[in-house]
């Protein structure tokens, strides 16, 4: 069994209110060095069998159709090692 990781992030130009809220809380906790925070999602897909290029292509399709909304988000696919 192998694991494929899909990371989904709001596009750079899209406002990220959640990241802003997290960023706003940091100084109150005494952490001052953080300039910006953006919040995304991480999906861990447990795959049946060996990871091939065809499997990764399929995961990219999953990422594009369901895990992310291409209008507002970017995604990356990588094999967990």
């Amino acid at each position, binding site marked *: 069994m192998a694991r494929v990781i899909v990371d989904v992030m709001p596009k750079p130009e899209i406002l990220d209110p959640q990241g802003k809220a997290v960023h706003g809380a940091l100084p109150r906790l005494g952490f001052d060095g953080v300039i910006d925070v953006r919040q995304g999602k991480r999906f861990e897909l447990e795959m049946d069998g060996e990871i091939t290029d065809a499997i990764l292509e399929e995961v990219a399709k999953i990422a594009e159709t369901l895990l992310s*909304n291409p209008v507002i988000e970017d995604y990356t696919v990588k094999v967990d090692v």
Partner: protein
Amino acid sequence: MKIGVVTFPGSLDDVDAQRAVTIAGGEAVSLWHGDQDLKGVDAVILPGGFSYGDYLRCGAIARFAPMMEEVVLAAHRGMPVLGICNGFQILCESHLLPGALIRNDHRKFVCRDQVLKIENASTAWTSSYEVGQEILVPLKNGEGGFIADEATLDMLEGEGRVVARYVGDNPNGSLRDIAGVTNERGNVVGLMPHPEHAVEDLTGPGTDGLGFFTSALATLLQTR
């Protein structure tokens, strides 16, 4: 005239939408997300609420409901489809409408009566209004910020596809104060505020919302 209202797990305003259809003079038909039968309806409403608990993204999972396959096919055939609030989010996720809806820029849930300006009175759902008419309907959302890239926004404005705009303070950070948009054909409309809550004096801020439902009935009568 039969107007179907789809109930998803987590829909909240399906019964209000059905009542609005009835008060407007139509026959409301309850549709279930898991079915694949439009039961012969002439138009469809996707109601507000939190389908699938807003998991993943608002409307992202509802989009793949069996009933949505039928709704998408019917919309492409020209059937009037109105998505209100969560329904608007589902229409964007289904690519029946451009853009997306993200968390309110101020991060708070907003619930208030909202003035809207009707910008396009020729869609299947707004023909009972006049262009420039201001109406008062309830607004309640946490993720109601309409966004799209500049080219898409310019295209929507250029083609007259902005259906309604917020008047006064922008309640959720929607770009260009957009409260609702339509598709190229004008049969599919998405609206963030809730006209179905403004159809009776007893339970709403007035009856300004009724026009959406009478519009659809009038459009259907014309095309029969």
